[in-house]
């Protein structure tokens, strides 16, 4: 089982995140789907770092967490700014770049 199981779980969660990003229109839930995809990749890296006797995967996962934290903070600030400007959060209604 081992590595096959890890990559099956990881690919499944990644694809669920991709579906969620495409079909949902609430930007918060789209962000959560991106988090799902990032997390599934982290799991793959950690699992393979065990199977290959290497620590590089765990360090990659750590750096992915840093990037994800920065991305979430900036993204949520942008969502908040859009909400303050337009009072509306459906991404289908956001069709102009001008504020």
């Amino acid at each position, binding site marked *: 089982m081992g590595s096959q199981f890890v*990559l099956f779980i990881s690919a499944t*969660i990644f694809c669920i995140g991709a579906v969620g990003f495409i079909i949902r229109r609430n930007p918060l839930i789209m962000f959560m789907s991106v988090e*799902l995809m990032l997390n599934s990749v982290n799991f793959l890296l*950690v699992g393979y770092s065990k199977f290959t006797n290497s620590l590089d995967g765990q360090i990659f996962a750590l750096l992915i967490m840093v*990037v994800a934290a920065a991305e979430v*903070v900036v993204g949520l600030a942008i969502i908040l700014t859009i909400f303050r*400007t337009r009072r509306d959060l459906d991404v289908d209604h956001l069709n102009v770049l001008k504020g």
Partner: protein
Amino acid sequence: MFDLAYQTIVVVIGITAILASFGVILCASPIYSALYLIGNMICLALLFLLYNAEFIAAVQIIVYAGAVMILFLFIIALLGAKKEEKTSSWEKPAAFAFVPVLFGELLMALTADAGRPALGQFTEELIASVGNAQAVGMELFSRHLIPFELASILLLAATVGVICLAKFPAKIGGRRTK
């Protein structure tokens, strides 16, 4: 006997993680999505523990299930948890056509290299002798020092960017509000 119990626990937690991630994308209200996402992250942290990555598991709980999800819940509380109205659009069939292809491709690409031998130097005995956190720290501050420093610069840049976004009031109707 121990090995069988271990495998069973890993499979159960993995399936729970998949179910929780279905909950994230299927709930209508973002607050339930956030709670399911916390469940998913805790399941993944348990899997990290079972795969001998104690330090990453702790960081996952503190950073993801703690800080990031608290931030999400704050924003949801600030914006109000409105349900999105159901409208039919072309995105759904597109997603259900595109994602199975993606899944198949991922499985093919990942299984192609499944027989790779364990070549690295960090065997379980070596990591157990010094501890996972110490092993990760030694590796991080020797071979991966430059990415680590770049990550700190990235966090600084994100902090400054968020302060800029939050500090200046949003324009309404082309005029700055004070």
